[in-house]
């Protein structure tokens, strides 16, 4: 029993990580007043760049950097459209998603001619799982042992990074000058403006941070969890991260828990698939495959109802109606 739970939680961690990075990314963007449907695209773009670079340079770290770089580029496009050009942010986000979906495969095919995939990565060019000290030694201590050895220990560095990022983000958003200004600009840009702050600059900084975090998310998919880039490998994670963000009411710590929840749902769906459900009996696999999406909707609708986003999010900052 215990190890079943551990197993599910273990894969929960693996599945939550990309969501968590993306969710925190979205948090910065939306706190600053920029709605970002384009998380998905940034993740995908980064996943491709990371895998490609990791393959070429035989180093996951260079891969990570490349992923972040590309993700930030995409973020800047979104920033330019929604901050400088005051365009429709949702539309811009959708465009980013398509752009990433198309370009990754196109370039992948052109560079590696493997049907849009990057070549498989050997373990030297991936982030491998790290055993925490004494994992084996403690393994047979009752209860704690397995938890430490199988659950806490034995993930790749990005998993730990994603959870370490949570308190950091909280501290930045609620304890630093930048955080205060970030929240102000998302709630009432004119207030920030008349307080002598540059709305544009603040929002660009937020989108760039968003890009960086999405970069981590993508890199995790292709050079940590997976071993190479595959067409559309983000598979809707960007959107689920958004749902999680709303569910988390734009708060970092909540975000961690909601992402864990969504990851858990996914893990559970996998775990339950093809098993007799007590009382119901044999259930078609598709039910479980649809489960995470269904539950996303249910959570979005049932539990939180109307979540109030940062007041200015989605609205371009226009001083002069001309």
């Amino acid at each position, binding site marked *: 029993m215990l190890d079943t739970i551990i*197993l599910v939680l273990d894969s929960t961690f693996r599945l939550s990580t990309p969501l968590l990075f993306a969710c925190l990314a979205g948090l910065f963007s939306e706190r600053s007043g920029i709605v970002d449907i384009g998380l998905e695209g940034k993740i995908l773009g980064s996943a491709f760049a990371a895998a490609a670079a990791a393959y070429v340079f035989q180093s996951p770290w260079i891969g990570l950097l490349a992923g972040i770089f590309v993700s930030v580029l995409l973020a800047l496009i979104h920033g330019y459209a929604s901050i400088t050009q005051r365009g429709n942010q949702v539309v811009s986000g959708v465009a980013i998603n398509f752009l990433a979906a198309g370009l990754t495969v196109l370039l992948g095919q052109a560079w590696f001619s493997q*049907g849009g995939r990057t070549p498989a990565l050997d373990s030297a060019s991936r982030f491998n799982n790290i055993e925490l000290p004494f994992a084996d030694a403690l393994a047979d201590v009752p209860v704690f042992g397995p938890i430490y050895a199988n659950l806490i220990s034995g993930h790749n560095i990005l998993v730990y990074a994603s959870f370490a990022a949570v308190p950091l983000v909280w501290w930045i958003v609620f304890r630093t000058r930048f955080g205060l200004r970030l929240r102000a600009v998302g709630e009432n840009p004119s207030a920030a403006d008349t307080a002598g702050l540059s709305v544009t600059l603040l929002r660009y900084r937020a989108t760039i941070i968003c890009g960086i975090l999405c970069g981590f998310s993508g890199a995790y998919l292709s050079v940590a969890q997976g*071993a190479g880039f595959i067409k*559309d*490998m983000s*598979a809707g994670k960007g959107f689920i991260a958004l749902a999680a963000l709303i569910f988390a009411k734009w708060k970092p710590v909540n975000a961690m828990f909601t992402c864990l929840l969504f990851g858990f749902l996914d893990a559970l769906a996998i775990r339950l*698939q093809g098993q007799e459900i007590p009382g119901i009996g044999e259930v078609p*696999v598709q039910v479980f495959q*649809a489960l995470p999406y269904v539950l996303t909707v249910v959570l979005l609708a049932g539990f939180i109802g109307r979540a109030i986003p940062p007041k200015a999010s989605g609205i371009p900052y226009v001083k002069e109606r001309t």
Partner: protein
Amino acid sequence: EAFKPAVVYDFGGRNDRSFNEAAYKGALKFKERTGVNFRDFEIQNPSQREQALRNFARRGLDPIITIGFAQAAALEKVAKEFPDTHFAIVDAVVDLPNVRSIVFKEGEGSFLVGLLAAQATETDTIGFVGGMDIPLIRKFACGYKQGAKYANPDIEIIENMTGTTGAAWTDPLKGGELARSQFARGADVVFHAAGLTGTGVLQAAADEGKFGIGVDSNQNYLHPGSVLTSMIKGVDVAVDKTLVDAQEGNWTSGVEVLGLAENGVSWAYDQYNAPLITEEMKSAVEQAKMDIISGKVEVHDYMVDSSCPF
């Protein structure tokens, strides 16, 4: 006039490391031997199937080999339009005078690897990861189960399917997660019939120090020492043979059913997995093979009643 063959792959494409790739290898083999070049095309959306076939036919390519059951409907239309062109389809039956239909007894091959899995397991639990929950995949699954049960009647078999969209064939991450969860549920050998998704399954097996079983092409080389064997589906052989027949003018239309007897399906044994296969495993599987060919053991064909008794 010149001999100009063409191949049309289905979703997944030339390099899916599995089904389509096997067809590609076959055509490549033929090319290397005869120096005859060939055109090929990767399908991206359903309407393109018909279009691609027609394009090749119109440009006078002949024979035209289509890979995958999904192409049957398109082929049926186009083959009628070009009665003088020779077509072949793998994995489906199209009953036309100018079409050669090549189908495999995946059940038989799966039976053998199932049997091997049953012997390799130490937990009496083995797993199966399919791509999408469609008949073809159930065909694999059924044979696999039967083979395993044949070797060990009360063996536990965990069965999972990856997805419901085209991505089901190209999602190694999900494949990996499914495999991991099966391992955690006690399985120590997992057979995949999920195209590219399978690479994730084999990856997971390698990471977790468990056994994976490859499919379609020989995937033993991917993770030496961890891929127990591969259920080889002789698509490459079939494609190669079809091209040869066409070139040497002894083309035959109609249905070709390739099973163990015809060497259409088999289990992979090479330097990569030799250390994993004990003598008695080897003899047992060879014995079973003989029995199946001789008809002493009858492998259930999922397609006859769309159900699997095992």
